[in-house]
């Protein structure tokens, strides 16, 4: 890492990461606001009305970014959890802990906006379709990881247990992603793919991608902010103090 002139490992310590995160949050927040603003403008004022679905299709500009983030954040959370298990690194577990609530929120939003889109286009708020069911399971996984952590008093055990849960559950992400291909689902297929040209107008794709980028920046900002909370909360544990007795450590955990 010396070729950059910066000791990156310095920031793997919570005490050094806390102020760095504080300096980064305003930039990611500003990027999120600008991108979401531009995305909404293109989505509502530039993108044309869909010839099949009318204006109901505009839900795509929040539904697809939320669904992508729900899967993406899960993979990132599981990666941090795995890194934490492999290196026995406390900050990695803290990152996983900081990501979970945001991932859960985007999963909930993907389901809610999907139901808002399903009613006018399919005539049903909910169907037990492979895509919808696997996404619902993802929400339960997020909730399970958060509750599992909260239910274990010993921080190290809580870190490891929720990390194992997160890692095992990552198998659901490809199932969600490929569900529309593997099974005959009511849910429409992928709107954008790496191999084929998009099935929508260019302005629609642009709005969707800009919104996704905005949600991504939002996720980074809010995760960093939550990471700072976690750092401060854990620092407050007497175990971090210099002269904590075994009794005090036991009481804190």
């Amino acid at each position: 890492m010396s070729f950059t002139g910066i000791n990156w490992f310095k920031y793997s310590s919570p005490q050094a990461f806390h102020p760095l995160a504080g300096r980064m949050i305003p930039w990611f927040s500003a990027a999120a606001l600008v991108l979401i603003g531009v995305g909404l403008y293109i989505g509502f004022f530039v993108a044309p009305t869909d010839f099949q679905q009318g204006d109901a299709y505009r839900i795509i500009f929040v539904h697809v970014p939320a669904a992508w983030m729900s899967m993406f954040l899960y993979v990132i959370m599981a990666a941090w959890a795995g890194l934490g298990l492999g290196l026995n690194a406390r900050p990695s577990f803290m990152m996983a802990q900081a990501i979970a609530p945001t991932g859960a929120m985007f999963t909930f939003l993907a389901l809610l906006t999907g139901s808002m889109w399903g009613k006018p286009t399919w005539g049903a708020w909910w169907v037990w379709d492979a895509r919808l069911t696997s996404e619902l399971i993802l929400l339960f996984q997020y909730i399970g990881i958060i509750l599992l952590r909260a239910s274990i008093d010993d921080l190290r055990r809580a870190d490891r247990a929720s990390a194992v849960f997160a890692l095992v559950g990552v198998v659901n992400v490809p199932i969600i992603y490929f569900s529309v291909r593997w099974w005959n689902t009511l849910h429409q297929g992928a709107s954008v793919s790496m191999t084929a040209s998009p099935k929508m107008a260019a302005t629609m794709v642009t709005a969707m991608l800009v919104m996704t980028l905005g949600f991504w920046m939002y996720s980074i900002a809010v995760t960093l902010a939550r990471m700072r909370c976690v750092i401060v909360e854990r620092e407050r544990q007497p175990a971090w103090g210099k002269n904590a007795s075994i009794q005090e450590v036991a009481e804190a955990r």
Partner: protein
Amino acid sequence: MQWGSLTEFWAMGGYGLYVWTSFGASALCMVWEVLAVWRRHAAAASRDVS
């Protein structure tokens, strides 16, 4: 721009309820999350080591 008036914009071609519920709920959740994290940090930072 395909909207003739503000009313037309709110109506969203008859799908206004679904479209605005989706965007409204998303905005609410995100603003709520930011405020929750904000308050959590304030609470964590102000708590004394007992």
